[in-house]
């Protein structure tokens, strides 16, 4: 597989088995620089295992994961140094203030940053003296993205960044992801919300039973489906229930 210099993530035939469950069964894809790449699929499809192999958090049984030209298998720490990671279950020290958490993680990457500036990028600068335990769910997700940004990462991995968030917080996170992309980062995220994938992703891979069953831009995937003569069961209306909810409760964040 020839990779152009614009390819930041290469996954080559990744496989991973837990006991007798095959979590990842030969997954291959490439992600281009500056792209938001989404991995979609139901729970247990193998999204998280794939993303954790790319992050150097898990060893694949076989196959290669290459980030920015570095093979994860050969130097996981070099990969960890240039990526930003938001795990599905993220937690930080509950007795530290947000600015202290950002500062501590920056030191772990030997990065010099202004914690308040990083916090302001995710809209948390006003909470810099709050403790982690005092944050709402959306704020916790935004803090974990702030922490993932301390080393000015080449690739940002977001594993289900909006799961459990209310519609307002979700939309704010989408805006944040778009802003980070506009700043020049490559982002790979997993989600099981289709509107999220449609809103954010340049390309998506649909994963089922550890395999990629479709990979294209959201528009192309929809066009392919319509070309088969598919008709939605419900008449498409101009607004969704999501719009109704946001119209009733407002778009302001509840933090």
């Amino acid at each position, binding site marked *: 597989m020839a990779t152009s210099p614009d390819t930041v993530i290469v996954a080559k035939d990744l496989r991973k088995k837990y006991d007798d469950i095959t979590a990842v069964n030969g997954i291959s894809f490439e992600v281009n620089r500056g792209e938001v790449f989404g991995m979609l699929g139901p729970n247990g499809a193998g999204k998280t295992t794939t993303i954790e192999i790319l*992050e*150097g*958090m898990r060893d694949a049984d076989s196959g290669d994961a290459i980030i920015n030209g570095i093979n994860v298998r050969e130097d996981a*720490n*070099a990969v*960890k*140094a240039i990526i930003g*990671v938001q*795990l599905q*279950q*993220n*937690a*930080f*020290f509950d*007795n*530290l203030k947000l600015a*202290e958490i950002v500062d*501590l*993680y920056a*030191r*772990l*990457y*030997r990065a010099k940053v202004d914690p308040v500036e990083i916090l302001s990028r995710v809209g948390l600068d006003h909470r810099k003296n709050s403790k982690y335990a005092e944050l709402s769910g959306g704020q916790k997700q935004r803090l*974990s993205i702030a922490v993932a940004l301390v080393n000015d990462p080449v690739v940002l991995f977001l594993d289900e960044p909006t799961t459990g968030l209310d519609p307002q917080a979700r939309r704010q996170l989408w805006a944040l992801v778009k802003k980070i992309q506009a700043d020049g980062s490559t982002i790979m995220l997993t989600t099981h919300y289709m509107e999220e994938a449609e809103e954010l992703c340049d390309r998506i891979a649909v994963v089922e039973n550890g395999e990629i069953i479709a990979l294209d831009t959201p528009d192309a995937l929809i066009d392919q489906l319509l070309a088969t003569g598919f008709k939605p069961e419900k008449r498409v209306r101009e607004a969704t229930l999501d719009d109704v909810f946001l119209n009733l409760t407002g778009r302001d964040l509840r933090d």
Partner: protein
Amino acid sequence: MKIYLALTVASLKMYFRNKQGLFWALFFPLLIMIIFGIMNFDGYNAPEVGVHDAAKNDASRALIQALRGGDNKVLDVSTGTNEEIQHDLKFSGSRAAIIIPENYGVPGELTVIEVTYDQRFMQERSVVSTVIGQATDALFKEFAEVPNEFRVENSISIDESFIEGHGQGFKAWLIPGIAAMAIMQTGLFTVVFTLVRFKSQGVLRRLKATPIGASHFLAGQLTTKAIVVVLQTYVLVIVGAIVLGVSVGNGRIGAWFDLTILALLGGALFIAMGLAVSGWAKNEETAAPIANIISMPMMFLSGVFFPLSVMPDWLTKWSQYLPLTYLADGMRAITVEGASITTLGSELLGLGIWIIIVFVIATKMFRWE
């Protein structure tokens, strides 16, 4: 190194912000110390006396038996060399040192029993002299088979002298034991609770996603606990000594250095124990009972609240080998008796062996996730 420092500073901040942890590390032990100190259990125990038996014959053994009393312990008698019993009188809780001369019980010889009292305890003096008087009287008659009318009044005499002892009783005895217990609690419980919580919340996993990995974090955590254990020992011993009005190490400055070494050894031992437990326990619900099962017996069997001598022999035969017993005994020797750490051979050996055992278990048991 910078990363390690940053992690240590961060975990120190976390520790001192955790009010609950501070309560268990400082206020709870202080509370116990003060309550027990005020209750002052001295009066409940038979007074300690030391006997040096130079005669080692039937008569001297009978005298020691008489001093011990029957079922009602009159005196808590320990035997030893002259130096040992004089040392105990000066520095430990012993109230009198009794020397039975070589010719004791030999018919016709004039024997002098030398008794030195701690002049602060005159009540004990009257008990000791009465018992010796009665015992020698009766025993001499019986043993020598001398008819009453030929008895020589002064064939046995008691030569009494007095010194001002430095032994400070139960209050002074209590402080190092409680400080040792606090080292156990801090090492075991704070390590278990923070690590199990960080593990179950996923904090450790998030650290694993950084290039430094979680082992640096662990090193920072352990350094923090070691610092906390030493500071806590200083605070408990100083505040205890002030509140209960006792002196530390007979005023020897080196005692603080020795205490620091012992606190670090004890800290290492119980921190490793905490690591082993947190490796084994999946969450806080299982960790707490395990930590309690380990610490509770030691709390009561290691001579923290009461001397081991009040416990039955079959129990102390085992409990003398508990890690907390070694730590408490060592710290007590330093603060109460003014001993130097170089004289604490068996305590250091015991702690050393336990440290090795527990570290081996901890490295086998610890898991990041």
